C-alpha cells in the first residue's frame, strides 16, 4: 500500500481544478496534518509504581517481583529474587505477621494473596549457590544470633565481608530457637537456616557472651552489629507477687523449646495479650493444661497476630477480655488471681484505648500456674556505658548506626516493632550501612547510601544494582486498580491441621502444593506494574498506544493522544497516571 503518495484536497493547499484528481477521491493516508496531541489538557503517563505489599514489607522483599516469577512457574528464579532481600523464606513463611497480606489490594476484592504461604512454598526452591561479592577484607562482628543478627551476617557475607556471630547461649537462633513454639516454627528449620549461613562462610561462636567486661574481644573487628534482642521480661505491678510463683513467659517458652521438663499443673492463667501470651497459652494446652488468657483490653487491641488468636481459640484457649489482675494469692492447691473488669476509654499515646476498672466487678480465677507475658525489654546493662542512654532501647539512626562510629544495632534491642520481619529488615539495613562504612565513604551511614531509602524495608538490589530508580512516588491502592478485569477465584489454601490433631507440637500449617502455589501466585495482579494486558492499546481511540514497544514506558505516542484518559481508567494495575499538560 502506497502511503507516500498522498493526494487529495488538503486544507490550505489551494490547488487548481486541473491539479485536483477527479472523482472526489483522496488517495493515500495520513499525511500528519492534524496534530490532535495539541488538544490535550492532561497526558497519560505509564509508570512503574509501588505495590503496597512490597512497600510495607519490613524486610524489603520485592514481593511483586517474586510473585510475577512464581506466576510463570519459575519457582527457582522467584526464590533467588527473594533471597536477594530476605535470607529466610522458610522462617518468614511460618512466623511472619505478613503485613503484606494486610495491605494487599485484593483484600478488597476476594481476599489477599496468600503471600505468606507462597513464601514458605518457595523455601524449598533455594538454589544451591548464592552469589556473593568477592572478599573485601572487612571483618564484622555480630553479637546475637536472633533473626536480626543472622540477617546482618547473611548480607554482610553477600557483600564480601567476613562475619563472626557471637551467641551467649549454646544454641543459635535467638527467639527463633527459644521463643517461638515449634508448632509454629520447627527447630529443624532454624538449624537448616543456620547451616545455610555456615555454608556461606559465617563463623558462629555459641556459648560466647559479650559483655561490658569482654568488650575488648570486639576490638579486632572493623565493625560491630549489636542484636542482643529484648530478653528481659517487663514487670507486672501486681499485689502479692512476692509470695507467689509466677513464670515469665520467655522463660517458660525457652524451657519448653529446649526440651526441659515443665510442670504447669492442670490449669494455667496467662496474663497479657501479645504473641508471647498466646504462644504460652497454646504451649500450655499442648502440655496438657487448660489455659486461660487474661487481657485488659478487647480483641481489637490485642497486639498478638490475629490468626494466632483465632488458632488459639480454636484449640480451646479461653480468653477473658477487658479483665485486669489486681492481686495474686495462694488459694487452694494453686494460685488465686483476683481480677476486675475494665471499660475502654480514650486512646493512649499508642492509639489504643485506655482500660479503666469498673467498680464492683471483681471476680477471681484459680489456676495452678500463672504465666506473665506483658512485654519484653532489652537488657542494656551488658553494653558499655558509652552506648547506653536513659531510655529502654539502644538508640540508632535510620540505618542502624549508633552514635559510636563502627557500632551498629538492630532487632528488638532497638526501638522498632518486635517482629521477625522487622528484625531481618534492620539486620539488612545495618549490613548495608556497615558496608558503606567499611568502604570508607562516610562514617556511620548518616548520609543515605545510593539505593537505600528510608522506609520499612530497604532494598539490597537497590543498593548493589541501583535497580529501583524507576519507581515513582506513589503506592497503588485498590481505588487505583480496575477490578473489572479481575476474576473471582476460589484458590486452594495451605492445609491446616484440624484441631483434634493438634495435641502435640507438630506444625499446625502445612505447605501449598505446586498447583496451589501457582493458583495463589496467579491471583496477584501486579499492582503498579504494567502486566502487558494491552487494555491501553486496545482501548485507545487514537491508536496512540503502541503495544509492540519493548518498554511499556515508551508506549504512548503523544503526537495524537488527546488525553481522554480511557487508558488510565482501564489499566487494571494502576500503572498509568493522568498528569497536567505543561
Amino acid at each position, binding site marked *: 500500500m502506497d502511503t507516500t503518495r498522498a493526494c487529495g484536497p488538503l486544507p490550505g493547499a489551494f490547488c487548481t481544478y486541473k491539479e485536483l484528481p477527479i472523482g472526489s477521491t*483522496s488517495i*493515500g493516508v495520513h499525511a*500528519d496534518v492534524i496534530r490532535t496531541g495539541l*488538544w490535550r489538557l492532561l497526558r497519560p503517563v505509564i509508570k512503574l509504581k509501588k505495590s503496597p505489599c512490597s512497600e510495607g514489607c519490613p524486610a524489603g522483599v520485592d514481593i511483586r517481583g517474586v510473585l510475577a516469577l512464581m506466576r510463570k512457574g519459575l519457582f527457582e528464579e522467584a526464590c533467588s529474587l527473594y533471597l536477594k532481600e530476605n535470607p529466610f523464606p522458610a522462617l518468614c513463611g511460618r512466623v511472619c505477621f505478613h503485613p503484606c497480606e494486610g495491605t494487599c489490594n485484593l483484600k478488597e476484592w476476594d481476599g489477599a494473596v496468600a503471600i505468606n504461604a507462597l513464601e514458605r512454598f518457595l523455601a524449598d526452591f533455594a538454589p544451591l549457590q548464592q552469589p556473593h561479592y568477592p572478599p573485601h577484607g572487612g571483618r564484622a562482628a555480630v553479637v546475637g544470633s536472633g533473626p536480626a543478627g543472622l540477617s546482618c551476617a547473611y548480607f554482610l557475607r553477600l557483600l564480601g565481608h567476613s562475619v563472626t556471630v557471637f551467641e551467649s547461649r549454646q544454641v543459635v537462633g535467638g527467639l527463633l530457637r527459644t521463643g517461638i513454639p515449634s508448632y509454629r516454627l520447627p527447630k529443624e528449620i532454624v538449624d537448616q537456616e543456620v547451616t545455610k549461613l555456615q555454608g556461606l562462610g559465617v563463623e558462629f561462636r555459641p556459648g560466647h557472651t559479650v559483655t561490658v567486661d569482654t568488650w575488648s574481644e570486639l576490638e579486632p573487628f572493623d565493625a560491630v552489629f549489636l542484636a542482643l534482642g529484648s530478653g528481659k521480661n517487663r514487670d507486672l505491678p501486681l499485689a502479692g507477687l512476692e509470695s507467689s510463683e509466677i513464670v515469665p513467659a520467655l522463660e517458660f517458652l525457652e524451657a519448653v523449646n529446649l526440651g526441659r521438663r515443665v510442670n504447669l499443673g492442670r490449669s494455667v492463667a496467662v496474663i497479657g495479650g501479645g504473641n508471647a501470651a498466646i504462644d504460652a497459652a497454646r504451649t500450655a494446652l499442648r502440655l496438657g493444661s487448660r489455659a486461660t488468657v487474661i487481657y485488659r483490653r478487647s480483641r481489637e487491641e490485642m497486639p498478638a497476630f490475629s490468626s494466632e488468636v483465632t488458632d488459639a481459640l480454636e484449640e480451646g484457649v479461653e480468653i477473658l477480655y477487658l479483665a485486669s489482675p489486681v492481686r495474686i494469692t495462694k488459694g487452694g492447691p494453686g494460685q488465686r488471681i483476683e481480677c476486675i473488669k475494665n471499660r475502654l476509654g480514650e486512646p493512649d499515646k499508642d492509639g489504643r484505648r485506655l482500660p479503666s476498672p469498673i467498680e464492683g466487678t471483681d471476680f477471681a480465677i484459680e489456676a495452678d500456674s500463672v504465666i506473665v507475658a506483658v512485654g519484653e525489654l532489652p537488657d542494656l546493662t551488658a553494653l558499655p556505658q558509652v552506648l547506653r542512654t536513659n531510655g529502654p532501647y539502644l538508640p540508632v539512626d535510620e540505618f542502624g548506626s549508633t552514635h559510636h562510629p563502627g557500632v551498629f544495632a538492630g532487632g528488638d534491642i532497638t526501638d522498632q516493632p518486635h517482629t521477625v520481619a522487622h528484625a531481618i529488615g534492620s539486620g539488612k539495613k545495618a549490613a548495608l550501612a556497615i558496608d558503606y562504612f567499611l568502604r570508607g565513604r562516610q562514617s556511620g551511614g548518616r548520609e543515605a547510601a545510593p539505593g537505600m531509602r528510608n522506609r520499612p524495608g530497604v532494598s539490597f538490589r537497590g543498593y548493589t544494582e541501583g535497580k529501583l530508580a524507576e519507581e515513582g512516588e506513589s503506592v497503588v491502592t485498590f481505588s487505583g486498580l480496575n477490578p*473489572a478485569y479481575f476474576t473471582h477465584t476460589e484458590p486452594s489454601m495451605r492445609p491446616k491441621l484440624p484441631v483434634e490433631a493438634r495435641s502435640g507440637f507438630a506444625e499446625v500449617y502445612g505447605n501449598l502444593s505446586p498447583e496451589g502455589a501457582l493458583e495463589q501466585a496467579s491471583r496477584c495482579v501486579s499492582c503498579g506494574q504494567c502486566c502487558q494486558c494491552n487494555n491501553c492499546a486496545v482501548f485507545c*481511540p487514537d491508536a496512540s498506544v503502541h503495544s509492540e514497544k519493548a518498554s511499556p514506558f515508551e508506549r504512548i505516542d503523544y503526537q495524537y493522544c488527546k488525553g*481522554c*484518559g480511557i487508558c488510565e481508567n*482501564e489499566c487494571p494495575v494502576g500503572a498509568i497516571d493522568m498528569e497536567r499538560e505543561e
Partner: protein
Amino acid sequence: MPGEEFFKGGHTLCPGCPGGILWRLITKVMGPNSITTMGSTCISLPPAVFPSVLDLPSISLSMASPAALISGVSAALKVLRRKGRRPGNERTNVFCVAGDGGTADIGFAGLSGAAERNDDGVYFCFDNEAYMNTGIQRSSLTPEGTWTTSTLQGKLQPKKDVPMIMAAHGIPYVATASIGFPDDFIRKAEKARDMAGGFRYIHVHSPCPTGWRFPENQMVEIARLAVECGMWRLYEVENGVWRITHDPEPRRPVAEYLSRQGRFHHLSPEERLHIQAVVDRACGIRDGKGEEHYTKIKK
C-alpha cells in the same frame, strides 16, 4: 490482534470516542484485503476528510445508502472475478460501518433489502443511540426516556430492536456487541468475516461521552455497565441458532447506569423504576426463553 493499525491517530473524533476503537478493531479483523462502505455518521469523517486516517479503500454516498453500497461492491467483485479481471480465489472482505440513524431510520429500507437479498458483506452498526453528528437528536435507537435535543423531556418510545429484526431476516449471522467487551466483539467479527458469504450483521453498542453526558475517560466503563445491568444484551444468532455470549451474573441495577449519564438526569424515580421493570422483562424473555422468543418471530 495484529499490531498493524489500519485506522490511525490524527483524526478529529471527540476524545474518548468509541468509534475510534471500533474502526481500529474492525479493520484489524477484516485486514488489508478489504473494502469498506460507510453511511453518514460521526465516524465516517476520519476516512473521508483528507488526509484520511483509514488505510483501506472506502466509499460513502448518501446517508441512506450504506447497505446498498455493499450490494454494489460485492456484486461487482463477483462479476469481475468471473470474468478474470480480479483473481478468482481472492477473498476481499466487504464491510460497512454505519450509525444508528443510517441503520434503523433513513437507511432501514436499504438495510432490510440487502439483508433480504443476503448480499455478501458484514454490516457493522455503530450505535451511539442518537444522531450525534448533527448535535444529539433522537433516532429510533435512542432508548426510552433519553434526553436529546429533539426529546427534551425524554423520548417516549422504546429503542427499536434492530438486531432481532435482522435475525428475522434469516441471514446467516446476527450479533450484538459492545465496545466494553472487545474480546467478545473481535470473536464475533472474526466469525462473521470467516463465513462463506451472505449478509452478516453486527450491532455495536457505543457510548458517546459527548452525547450521553459523562466524562470521556469512563467510556469503556459505561459500555460494560450497560451490559452488566441488562440494558444491552450480548448475543449472537448463527444460522438461526440463538446464543447469549455474556450473561452478567448477578445483573447490576439499572439505576447505576442511569445515574452516571447526564442524558438521564431528568428522569423521575418512577421513570427509573419503569426502566428497571422493562429491562427485567426483556431479560426475562431472553434468559432461557430466547430460543422460544426468537422462534416465535420466525414463524
